[in-house]
């Protein structure tokens, strides 16, 4: 298997690889952050903060 030097460290960590539990956790973090930002900005509007 070829190793992409732009994405893979000498220890084998590939930053573009996204599989398994790690991928699920990344998705969960993304969802949580997106909802937090959207709720915060929307509530700020509804409470007349901008």
């Amino acid at each position, binding site marked *: 298997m070829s190793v992409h*030097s732009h*994405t893979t460290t000498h220890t084998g960590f590939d*930053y573009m690889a996204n599989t398994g539990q790690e991928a699920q956790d990344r998705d969960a973090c*993304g969802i949580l952050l997106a909802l937090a*930002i*959207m709720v915060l*900005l*929307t509530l700020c509007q509804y409470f007349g903060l901008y």
Partner: protein
Amino acid sequence: MPEIDSIPYARTRTSFFSAMYGYGEILPGLLAMLFISVFANNLPGVPNPFTLENLFEWLSGVVGPINHTPLFQILNANFVWNPLLLGLLVGNCFGVPDSWKRGLSLIHILMPLGIIMLAPHFMIGHAFKLGLVPMLLCVLALLGTAGLTLFLVRLFKLDDRHGAIIAGGLCTGDPHACVILMPLIKAKGGQVANATACVIGFGLVAMVVMPSMAAWFGLPQTAFGLAAVLGVGNGAQAMSAAFAYGYEAGRYAGWFDVGRHVIMPAGFLFVFCITFLRKLRHKDDPRVLATRGIERFPIWLGVFIFCWGLTCLHLFREPAHHAIFTMVKWDFSLAAAALGLSLSWRDILAPGLKGLAITAIAGTLRMLVLLAVVALCVKTGLLPK
């Protein structure tokens, strides 16, 4: 003591927040993304005049507008492609140090984050002001183009990941959709960049050809405004083609563009669903690669659809919608910088010219059918003369 990179994720995991790693580990990569983004785009809150965006704007001014449209908008320079280009240059000229790679892996958090936050941008209610027939044409053009492209991909035996990205970009008329589809299709970065180049490249040709073809069909200015939006390429290319046909056509293209824009999510959802179902039906077929690795419908995509529904109910009103979109710009700029750094020129050229040929065939067929249908609608009075 083993290096942190070599320890399997499962052994260091304590909760799902473990996917964000430690602050010290991600800082170099995060700073790399930040600096590339800040020097690529005029990001809200950053008063940096030395950006690629400003350089392109200045060069567009030097060249002068092409049919009332700036050159670099026609070439699709925007908040995704500027950092991608800069990341590509940095990565290929100086390489990517190992210390950056933990931080750059945040791209996989930034992608679903940005796509979910895009939902307030697509307010369907705005588009129905265009009228039922133009909206129906927008939907049919979107689904028809996606279906036709996916069919050609199978016919010509193109890698289905590459083909699905082309289908998404071509049917939505927005090369952003190529990047949005990347985590859904599990496409390679090189395939995404290549597919985008195909869609933009075809758009440049269509921009020149379509006005002449429309004249042959004898389309009125109003109707060509709609046809250009649905049949050319990105918004700026459509605008330039319409202004080439006539000033009124250009103004109408601006009016109709909202119809294409608000149903964009339906385009990439359609492409994802078709490829995902195909993968489920051909689980053991080694030629079916698109969406491989995705076992069930992604939760974050469900969250996006839910938020899109809330948007259509006008939950995110004006200032909040703009504030959220500002965050999307930041998010996609950072993610595109990481994507650009991951690519080599060879990765982009590796998929070859087959994708371009399929884009050209699908795009040309779409143009011909669209012009014929729009002409028919004008003749029958479904569209105004």
